[in-house]
């Protein structure tokens, strides 16, 4: 695969990943839904619906069942109004029924929505077998907080010869902005054998249509340094427990960083598939294959150190969470 092709894939993936952010905006009129093919209203009774402004219809149970069958074939319909969008001016006030009343003298119950939860997902803890090297990679995410606001810790890196060769650690405030999307704001620290770097981070993480898990983060560092990182994953269920996970990760830098041997522009892209077996949901060993490419000046640094700028790796590891 040429570099050009790799670029094309990376940018296409980004376009897919980021599109839902604006795709949720346009709200479509409900009326357009009636053009959906395959509808069968022939068996519906007519009657007035209490409280409705107009006459309504109600389907018989049998009618529903048949509609359901037909509707399954109505793919390709636009249903933008069902998700996302912004509230129309006449939307109801959710507090409009309170009549000015608040909770009584007894402190109201505290439900799960006010509790804090936490979790750690080690998405990849793997031995990587490259052509001329064998090392360990880790990639984890932990969070603590409530449903819509949480502290997020992300860490990814490479351990070789008992040393952190490369370690990216981020501490972020994750804030839900849409049904499937969180913004993340915080700091990033790059460590390892080379001089360390600090960054401010701003990104989005969420679930794009068709179940693509996407992270896209922009960074601003000292001395005018900028960076961008993009990750997309997909989980393809072969069976209920055997899951194929394609994954791509790409990094970009705005400025050459000689000390860390990074060129400007696209610096690296890893694209792989991992096949895991969930012994339990929380515990899944996997094997995989990954293509890891470096580009531009970054690739030159790698070649100067007598390594390959393009390589295919075999990985074996463990995915677990609790």
């Amino acid at each position: 695969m040429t570099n050009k092709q790799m670029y094309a894939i990376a940018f296409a993936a980004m376009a897919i990943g980021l599109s839902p952010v604006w795709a949720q905006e346009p709200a479509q009129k409900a009326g357009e839904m009636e053009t959906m093919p395959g509808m069968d209203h022939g068996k519906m009774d007519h009657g007035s619906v209490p409280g409705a402004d107009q006459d309504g219809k109600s389907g018989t149970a049998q009618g529903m069942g048949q509609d359901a069958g037909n509707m399954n074939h109505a793919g390709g319909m636009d249903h933008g109004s069902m998700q996302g969008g912004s509230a129309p001016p006449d939307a109801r006030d959710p507090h409009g029924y309170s009549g000015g009343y608040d909770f009584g003298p007894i402190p109201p119950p505290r439900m799960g929505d006010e509790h804090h939860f936490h979790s750690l997902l080690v998405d990849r803890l793997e031995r990587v077998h490259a052509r001329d090297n064998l090392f360990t990679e880790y990639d984890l995410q932990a969070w603590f907080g409530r449903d819509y606001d949480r502290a997020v810790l992300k860490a990814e890196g490479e351990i070789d010869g008992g040393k952190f060769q490369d370690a990216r650690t981020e501490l972020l405030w994750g804030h839900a902005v849409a049904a499937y999307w969180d913004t993340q704001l915080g700091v990033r620290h790059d460590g390892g054998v080379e001089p360390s770097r600090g960054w401010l981070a701003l990104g989005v993480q969420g679930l794009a249509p068709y179940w693509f898990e996407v992270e896209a983060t922009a960074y601003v560092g000292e001395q005018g340094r900028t960076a961008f990182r993009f990750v997309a994953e997909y989980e393809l269920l072969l069976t209920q427990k055997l899951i194929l996970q394609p994954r791509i990760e790409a990094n970009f830098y705005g400025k050459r960083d000689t000390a860390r041997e990074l060129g400007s522009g696209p610096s690296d892209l890893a694209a792989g598939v991992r096949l895991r077996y969930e012994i339990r949901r929380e515990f899944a060993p996997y094997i995989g294959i990954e293509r890891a490419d470096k580009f531009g000046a970054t690739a030159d640094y790698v070649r100067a150190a007598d390594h390959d700028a393009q390589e295919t790796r075999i990985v074996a590891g463990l995915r677990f969470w609790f």
Partner: protein
Amino acid sequence: MSTRRHFLAMPNLPRRRFIQGLAAGGILLGLSPWSRPAWAREAVGTASGTAKVLSGTEFDLTIAETPVNFTGSPRLATTINGSIPAPTLRWRAGDTVTLRVHNRLSEDTSIHWHGILLPYQMDGVPGISFKGIAPGETFTYRFKVQQTGTYWYHSHSGMQEQTGMYGAIIIDPAGTDPIRADREYVVQLSDWSDEDPMAVMTKLKMQSDYYNFNQPTAVQFFRDASSEGLSAAINKRKMWNQMRMNPTDLADISAYTYTYLMNGVAPASNWTGLFRPGEKVRLRFINSGAMTFFDVRIPGLKMTVVQTDGQNVEPVTVDEIRIGVAETYDVIVTPKDEAYTIFAQSMDRTGYARGTLAARAGMTAAVPAPDKPEPLSMGDMMGDMGGAVRVRHARTEYGPSVDMRVDTPRTNLDDPGIGLRNNGRRVLTYADLHTIGGPMDERGPGREIELHLTGNMARYTWSIDGVEFGRSTPVHFRHGERLRVIFVNDTMMTHPMHLHGLWQELENPDGRFQVRKHTISVQPAQRVSFLVSADAPGRWAWHCHLMFHMDSGMFREVVVA
């Protein structure tokens, strides 16, 4: 919570034993690693199977931890008087009952009398009706019984209901019961997990489809593609995937962790009710599950439904009933000289509770296999797209707490629901239920309020109008008013909505009175309306009775003033 120490990781059990439970499971009567308090030892012998019946006007109920073993792994349950289910309370209409509830747990507790009309301070919801019952304390409930029928009671604190705190209430009329039967049994259905419910909640927050092992797979896709053609197979999935919705999302919690119980015993233990051939037997079905809708049938027997939620209805004869969480249905059956299986499969078809009606002890009947799970249809997501009903979404339904909105809900009550449509059996629907005597209040509604049932499955958050309880304000009903409440279900799950202290008089799509209930199951993409007479001043809870939805915030306080 002291029980949490004892909830270990899920045991590596043989699968069959886990689903079926132990033949001799339930409350541990013999040796156990936990010592049993003296009061609990008194209950030995009646502890499992059929609950002890307590009647009269004075009751002492003691809440404590009791060792149980439903699956082969000992656990601690939260019990009332040491049994699961708790004792059946038998009251008489017109009596004033006194119930002293003693808390021997190390955490707060409470008891809510589900469906009972009473002063709000006696309703038993911590933070709304009272402060709760602290460890070591006794709270005395006292109220006049103003109704008749089958009801139940349960904890309203934390997740104690999931760990065993539920029992039946039977209220006899002062005179003769218009429902005549030669014999009667309470059939109380529930779900048991060896996991700590808080651990279950955490898992759902992390991965909301954690317990769903019926998901669409690539293998199925290729199977569909070869039988239906590639484009049909793609179309079938396209919209669901585009919307990030899962058509197999039938239940949040499955038999992967649940063992389903009938009268507190696992399927292998086979709860059995005896009868004499030809007798009219009244079965009082109560769904005391935390998260499970049960589809109940008795192969070989027709069931004549005579009551729901304690309210007598015009008799209707059916083969099968879907019982929403917290609902009750009384049926009359007339068995012949043989045995019959009472089969209560979970809505997601991963398991079942089972018992037997037998002419003689030891008789059993074949146990059917659970039906194949049926994926949700587009109608379950989008409602009735030809319908002309207008909905008004709240402005808070356009944010992160809501993953979909239904603009064109369906209004019909004659849909038995997913998995029961066109199954060849006569399945009860709300359209079949007519409360005898009509509505309790002939007035029309003076006003109406519309509330939307909302959630975000991926985040596992549940709310009303996109607002969880912690961010909500109370809903005000004016004392004495008659008002219409409209629920629109903007989710793909069925929500059993329970209003405390006040009846919900369900209307049919034409606005005519249908049935009086304390708990109304609202199906996916459905709009229902009901009238309420706000005749009980005070503060009342109003919530989805799926316990994890309630605890996630699908909950409101109602102020009647």
